[in-house]
């Protein structure tokens, strides 16, 4: 069984459409982890037909993903897809990634915006922010990917069992990459389309991510 985990915070406007999109593409097992939303996210996700787990208060996206992973493992999922709640991913990209795990024996699949031309990445992001982020990430984690902090990833059951996300906020993608390297998981990248909305993580976020990540190292 493939289970799609969607961490969501105040996404009432978009969550229904995202869930329906997944259902239309044949992904019937969808769990939304509502990370302490103050709007109708949980209600609308339930109405749309997803399983909803509600954090009693806001813990952060990393924490929501780990809650989703824990749930997926108890439900016997063989693969876990991490998918954003804001509608910027294309559900058609999941099947190719799932195949990589099923047929090619990879244990972790990372989505990448740079492997095809579909994503219209804003100029500043494409040529300045992401190359810098990619380099910093490579230095910190030892894993070289064509994209960084892309919320689309697929974990095999084996990998999900070993990946325990302790970075509650936005440093969790780097943490996952570090665990992948340490555990020697076979990983691949998979082209995904990212539809750009007006918001996103700026440079200030990048600094916070690096700080959280380095600080987390003291606690392992």
């Amino acid at each position: 069984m493939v289970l799609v985990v969607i961490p969501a915070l105040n996404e009432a406007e978009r969550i229904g459409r995202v869930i329906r999109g997944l259902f239309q593409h044949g992904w019937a097992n969808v769990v939304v982890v509502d990370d302490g939303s103050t709007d109708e996210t949980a209600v609308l996700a339930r109405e749309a037909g997803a399983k909803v787990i509600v954090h009693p208060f806001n813990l952060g996206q990393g924490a929501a993903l780990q809650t989703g992973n824990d749930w997926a493992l108890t439900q016997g999922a063989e693969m876990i897809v991490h998918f954003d709640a804001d509608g910027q991913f294309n559900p058609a990209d999941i099947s190719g990634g799932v195949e990589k795990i099923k047929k090619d024996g990879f244990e972790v699949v990372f989505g990448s915006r740079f492997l095809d031309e579909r994503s219209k990445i804003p100029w500043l992001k494409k040529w300045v922010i992401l190359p810098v982020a990619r380099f910093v990430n490579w230095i910190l984690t030892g894993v070289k990917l064509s994209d960084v902090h892309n919320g689309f990833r697929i974990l095999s059951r084996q990998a999900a069992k070993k990946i325990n996300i302790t970075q509650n906020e936005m440093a969790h993608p780097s943490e996952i990459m570090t665990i992948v390297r340490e555990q020697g998981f076979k990983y691949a990248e998979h082209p995904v389309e990212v539809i750009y909305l007006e918001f996103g993580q700026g440079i200030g976020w990048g600094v916070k991510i690096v700080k959280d990540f380095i600080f987390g190292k003291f606690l392992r």
Partner: protein
Amino acid sequence: MMLIQILLILFFCFAIFKSVMRWKRGELKLTQAFGWWIFWLIAGVVVVVPNSTYYFARLLGIGRGADLVVYLALALLSYLVFRQSVRMEKINRQITQLARKVALDEATKEEKK
């Protein structure tokens, strides 16, 4: 005696009194309380006889006793702040685990209904 010395001595007495009370209430272990008493006593001696630090400062190659006190105070504060942040982070993680457990238990209950 300068006014600052009197004020500091009063403050140290107050700090010692507080730690005695906390020890009596069982909020501090005897070893911890003892550590604080020694700390405030040494601070008191340094304030009353500022030149007493001179010997140690010379020993360490620092020119003035007052500088030694500043260096030590900074080092101690940095250490305490670091320890505090690590503790906060640990508590954060425990709260996360607790909140997650609550959320997952609730989700399991719903499933069984």
